[in-house]
């Protein structure tokens, strides 16, 4: 099939960006979306031009590196799918495909479709862990965990940290990401001990990073490639309120 690609090109954070159109003639429906971009880049390189910079790595939908908005949707039109797992059979001959980076104040553009998501790392560093040093653990079966509870924790822990939730949100809020980690650890006995401190300090860091507030649009859940539920946000809000009122810290 033939496609027109309308791609955001930007030299760097403080450089002006713009859409540039490219024609691609021989796209096979079996290609993955990123393989299609490789074909484009090969074409650009053969013309002595600079290829489109985009981030990708595992190509299995798990590392969370890919970060592009395709036709208005983070990771593209297919639900529950990262850009790297999207295949060209979901596009039509003659279609125009718009590709742009995840846009948010807290995710500055590095180049073209590549953005800086280190804010997420700093939020995890603020408390997204259990404070257990190597060698301090008791036997793994010492604390039984109810299967359903463990399964709920897993659903939250499945977050890949890609940032699609932020890109999808009109407020560029990171609530889904943060609440997924808060839920994962709060739901497990191992994470309960630090639960109060954790939620306060992760939310504080989230605000410092300049992410917006949640206004219950729920676009984050709709566009999350891993189907992380907004129930996590509700859980985090409960945890946060409980912590604020019972905390002795300011």
């Amino acid at each position: 099939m033939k496609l027109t690609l309308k791609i955001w090109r930007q030299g760097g954070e403080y450089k002006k960006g713009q859409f540039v159109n490219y024609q691609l003639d021989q796209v096979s429906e079996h290609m993955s979306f990123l393989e299609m971009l490789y074909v484009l880049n090969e074409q650009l390189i053969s013309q002595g031009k600079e290829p489109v910079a985009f981030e990708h790595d595992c190509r299995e939908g798990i590392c969370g590196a890919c970060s592009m908005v395709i036709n208005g949707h983070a990771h593209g039109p297919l639900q529950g799918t990262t850009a790297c797992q999207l295949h060209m059979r979901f596009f039509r001959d003659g279609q125009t495909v718009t590709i742009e980076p995840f846009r948010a104040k807290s995710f500055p553009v590095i180049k073209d479709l590549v953005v800086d998501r280190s804010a997420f790392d700093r939020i995890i560093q603020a408390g997204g862990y259990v404070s257990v040093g190597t060698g301090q653990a008791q036997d793994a079966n010492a604390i039984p965990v109810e299967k359903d509870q463990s399964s709920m924790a897993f659903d939250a822990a499945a977050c890949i940290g890609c940032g699609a939730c932020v890109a999808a949100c009109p407020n560029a809020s990171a609530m889904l990401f943060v609440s997924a980690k808060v839920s994962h650890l709060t739901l497990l006995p191992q994470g309960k001990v630090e639960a109060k401190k954790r939620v306060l300090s992760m939310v504080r860091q989230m605000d410092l990073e300049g992410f917006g507030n949640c206004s219950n649009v729920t676009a984050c859940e709709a566009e999350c490639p891993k189907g992380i539920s907004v129930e996590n946000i509700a859980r985090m809000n409960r945890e946060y309120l409980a912590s604020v009122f019972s905390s002795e810290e300011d």
Partner: protein
Amino acid sequence: MQLNGNIPEGSLAEKWTRYRSTVSLVAPNNKMRIEVIVVGSGLAGASAAASLGELGYKVKCFTYHDSPRRAHSIAAQGGINAAKNYRNDGDSVYRLFYDTIKGGDYRSREANVYRLAEVSAAIIDQAVAQGVPFAREYGGLLDNRSFGGVQVSRTFYARGQTGQQLLLGAYQALSRQIALGAVEMYNRHEMLDVVLADGKARGIIARNLVTGELERHGAHAVVLATGGYGNVFYLSTNAMNCNVTAAWRVVRKGALMANPCFTQIHPTCIPVSGDYQSKLTLMSESLRNDGRVWVPKKQEDAQAIRESRKTALEIAEEDRDYFLERRYPAFGNLVPRDVASRAAKTACDEGLGVAPTGLAVYLDFASAIERYGRSKANTLGIHNPDKATIIRLGEEVVSEKYGNLFEMYEKITGENPYKMPMKIYPAVHYTMGGLWVDYNLETNIPGLFATGECNFSDHGANRLGASALMQGLADGYFVLPYTIGNFLSNDIRTPKIDPNRQEFLDAEKQTQERIDKLMNLGGKQSIESFHRRLGRIMWDYCGMSRNAEGLQKARGMILELREEFYRDAFVPGSANDFNPELEKALRVADYFEMGELMILDALNRKESCGGHFREEYQDEGGEAKRDDENYAYVAAGEYKGWEEEPVLHREDLVFENVELKTRSYK
């Protein structure tokens, strides 16, 4: 060069305990002044950096990713082994050790493997304490499953995302140390050289991938946890950015690369569909717990399927050849990876392949769905269930076990694997070979350590499933933190390493020259196209089966291709900017040299063992023929540059506890 594994004295079961109790320590007040560089943030790197930080060392950790959480350990699906014996099925440290030695076709060190088995149980404890949500049973205790090459259930798993959950555990432990200031994290930095001073590894040259700037970093010791070299083959299950450059650069400085020809071809991957393809997708080995592997018995059926005139469902039961169950009745579909891969290749070579390319076999869940469906109906009290109910219930059970893998398969191929058997074919997955290290995980360069997939130490000629996660975490959490003290305790009087020393300036200059050379190639062909061609040569001649003639030919082809690369490749953009093409060029340049060394090692090893199958050395049944008399050694390659032949050094493997037998899964 005499290679000394530095294996401690004592009986196998005592070695590690005694070593731990007697190894030199570094006092806490000295640790604060000692710096350690860890390159890589996957399971081996993140766990090492976090644990060293906890001990009080000043750690700098480097990754080329935008975040340590993206390392390719995250993509490991199936599980992690541990000798917990929670199933009461006869597992023990010795049995895990024995299975691993045997699975590796008797080409690994007894002492290292035993230590791995010994610390395996503590890894599970550690991960659970970190909040890793392993699969559980209704009683709230941990669940297990089986993996290839073993007869016990010792694999712990977290759905089909065990690697993700374990890596997030290590990443979170690392994040905690970053927050505490014990670890300084360098994201988007790629190590391009190691710096040696007075014969010891004292730092690295790293490129800031955003600005293109070269940076000099000094430390008392350097740990490489930079993964394997599977991407030499271009098409593999590795992530796109996995590369050998960090490891190869230390080889260029005198470190030895051990057993480079030992590469693992994983039997269950989604087959190649076209020339544009740049990545292959693994389907977890856990699927072989329930999936049955088959091809049609008759060539005409296979041909009809290839030409889309028939489907798998139209092949009657008696016309199917469940070739693994037939050839290896004791282990059936759960034979080790090397055995399963070769059997699939043999079937396809006989014209029985089922994809249009001729290169695919079926992995069929129909009988598992039926079996689970009946059992579930029974549990629910449904007597005489009809076929539709059985299948519905069975599909639910299968979905609970493998749902995400089935979904992934359908997304990629467009076919529903609940209804139509999966098509699979072997693909490059893991590299058992790697930097030569002794019992301390130290390379032959003092102060330079290698952990995880980037060393050669534990898997011999073939790695068993669910053992990579085990080894990466064992090295990082429980081995390196002790063994590095052995080196650092002699360095407590060494002041902070000054990155302005001449050795650093020289290494930086050499790196800059390498970059300039690539930026100025001025040719026409893309870096990607060279990588693709190199991969094709490696796969055709140094892949699932190898022979002397082919290997000789491949070596010549690689040297020609390398010459063409330096004449006609083209790197667009600038070196002082974010430039993925330059990153690729630096890596592909190293693949040519690594590929050549792999071929020479494959030529040298005139036997078949594990993942290394030399066509000249097989028995009448087509099984690998090992030569323990002449090849029970580690071949460690010393690279001497383009003009000279590499030198292969030997470390003889001594087996005091296991008897070398022909590996049989029949």
